[in-house]
């Protein structure tokens, strides 16, 4: 028996040796190559220090390859990490709108409100916030001059144009709006939309994120004669078809985007309200109490029901800046109706052969179309057989 246990022990040891030897061989340590410190006598180092006030840290700050030679110094074209920016351009001199459309394939072009962003960047650090390179003369080349449209799979250090643009935009935009939907900046390049030229005249040139504007503002003004001014903001947009820029023309971002204020400053009403409403008497806006939303029937006494709801105001009122009371007779707008061109079926009543030749005024007394005529206006006995109408009433 003792000899068997010794056999087992030996076999166990053999197994242990077989398993333990490779396990003990683990642990390959490795390290990354250390960066070469810039030679003190390197001529560019002194120049760089004079220009930027910063000392070069590594050869790789300027050279792409590890062993630059005089023949092939493989210099980084537009260095990202060490800013080479000499431009003194003012925000006002910068382009207002830049249309980025070099890559529009899946998505449409982007209308980039450059000056608006430049204004914002002024707080953060000026042009250098985004532009990491300018020529010595101060000329800022466009991104596409260094960043190729095609990705380079050999020199990986420089992003291609698509990557460069998106890195530039998304880093701030994610911080700001926490949104990464493409449609935020891009027009969708569908057949329908690709033909549409983006409206660069609107408030920021791009679809501004939906602003949760208060539908109605009620201002308590120091105006003695009618202190309350009710401003239905959303009615102006939804009902009267006003665009942002119609009122917010030349508006500064800081009117809304100001850290010190929770609410935006009100617009100057002389320029914004009066540009449309003209110089009417003050009581048009200044009332003693808050006003309800505009409702055509209540406010003007002429209901839009049922045929005129949803119509563009300008159809009757002409230009949007002169919403004056038009003539209210049908034929003042529907001029062709006088020629018998009116299709009565649209009212829900199709005129039969006996009535089709009647004049409007035959049924609609005094051409008062808001009152629905009844048969007994003309016919004494509406139940009479169709072929034998009753006696005509005399108007």
């Amino acid at each position, binding site marked *: 028996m*003792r*000899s068997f246990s*010794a*056999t087992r022990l*030996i*076999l166990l*040891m*053999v197994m242990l*040796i*077989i*398993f333990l*030897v*490779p*396990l003990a*061989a*683990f*642990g*390959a340590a*490795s390290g*990354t*190559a250390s*960066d070469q410190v810039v030679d003190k006598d390197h001529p560019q180092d002194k120049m760089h220090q004079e220009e930027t006030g910063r000392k070069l840290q*590594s050869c*790789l700050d300027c050279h792409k390859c590890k062993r630059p030679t005089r023949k092939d110094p493989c210099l980084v074209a537009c260095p990202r*990490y060490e800013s080479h920016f000499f431009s003194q351009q003012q925000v006002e001199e910068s382009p207002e709108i830049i249309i980025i459309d070099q890559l529009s394939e*899946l998505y449409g072009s982007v209308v980039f409100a450059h000056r608006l962003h430049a204004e914002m960047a002024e707080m953060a650090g000026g042009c250098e916030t985004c532009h990491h390179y300018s020529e010595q003369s101060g000329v800022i080349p466009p991104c596409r001059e260094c960043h190729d449209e095609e*990705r380079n*799979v*050999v020199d*990986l*250090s420089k*992003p*291609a144009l*698509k*990557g460069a643009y*998106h*890195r530039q935009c*998304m880093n701030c935009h*994610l*911080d700001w709006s926490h949104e*990464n*939907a*493409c*449609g935020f900046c891009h027009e*969708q390049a569908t057949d329908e939309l690709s033909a549409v030229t983006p409206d660069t005249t609107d408030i920021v040139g791009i679809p501004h994120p939906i602003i949760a504007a208060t539908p109605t503002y009620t201002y308590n003004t120091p105006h003695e004669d009618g202190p309350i001014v009710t401003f239905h903001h959303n009615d102006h947009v939804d009902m009267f078809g006003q665009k942002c820029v119609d009122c917010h023309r030349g508006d500064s971002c800081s009117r809304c985007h100001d850290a010190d204020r929770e609410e935006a400053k009100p617009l100057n009403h002389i320029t914004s309200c009066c540009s449309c409403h003209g110089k009417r008497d003050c009581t048009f806006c200044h009332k003693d109490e808050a006003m309800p939303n505009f409702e055509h029937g209540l406010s003007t006494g002429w209901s839009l029901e049922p045929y005129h709801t949803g119509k563009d105001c300008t159809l009757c009122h002409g230009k949007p800046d002169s919403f004056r009371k038009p003539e209210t007779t049908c034929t003042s707008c529907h001029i062709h109706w006088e020629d018998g061109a009116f299709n009565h079926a649209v009212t829900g009543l199709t005129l039969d052969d006996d009535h089709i030749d009647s004049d409007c005024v035959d049924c609609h007394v005094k051409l008062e179309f808001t009152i629905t005529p009844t048969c007994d206006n003309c016919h004494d006995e509406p139940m009479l057989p169709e072929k034998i109408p009753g006696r005509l009433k005399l108007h």
Partner: protein
Amino acid sequence: MVSRRDFMKISGSVAGTAAASLAGVQTACASGHHLEPDRIGVLTDYTECIGCRRCEWACAQENGLPFGDLESCDDQSVFQEMRRPDERQYTVVNRYPAPEGSDKPLDVKVNCMHCEHPTCVSACIVGALKKDPMGPVTYDASACIGCRYCMVACPFQIPAYEYHDPLTPKVLKCTLCTERTLEENKMPACVEMCPKEALTFGRREDLLDLARDRIRRNPDRYLPHIFGEYDGGGTSWLMIADRDFTEVDLPELSDRSAAEITEGIQHGIFRGFTGPLMVFGLVSILGKSMGDQEGRLDQEGQRKEGDNE
């Protein structure tokens, strides 16, 4: 009984042979898994990823997988749960909540890592999965017998199985767009699509240089760890991030692939049939010596019995 001298002799020779055979294992592995110095890879910079999920869309388009239209990528509700790539989606993006003191969540693209020494390839008993010397781990459906050992072996839990297909089920995973990358000289569909170049395609060596360079220049932005440089024996897909990779559910792996370890043991034992021969020899030696002993004992016993008589 085995004398002390016998034991020393036997164990010494066993250890010697074992060491010799294991030394052979290392060279066998190195030559058995030839990798081109120009092999390809992808570097994912987690700090650049914005979770737009366009890579998922591009992958589906390239591989003919079901996916909604481009705008369906904007659906952020998928981030409510952690997803894994499956047979209908070879890559997914998961969102990890922002750590304390930050409001930036981390978006993490998950796909086959195309290991340098893949355990799935090692586990595949029919050679349906292969490591291409140029980087990708390729799959040959015609060879696959559906044993799914690869799915068990993968430390990243990547290979997925077409359970819904009873007749010709396949194991599916990211292909590193082999056709595009190795034949058409293009980059993988997801890399090409990525708007922020959070994904970079290139030679693995160049990508490592790029990753080291980024870490060197932005020590505040990255942790000094390139996942996949050594992890699990190295991977073709490399990652850099601003936090520990275990926080985004990547496994902690040794610098040697599990495949290398197990293959080392198995191939070592059976190399030149030395192991089995050794064990066989050992057993016969023991058997012989025990037989001698037993014979001696028997003789002694018989003698004692004779004396008693």
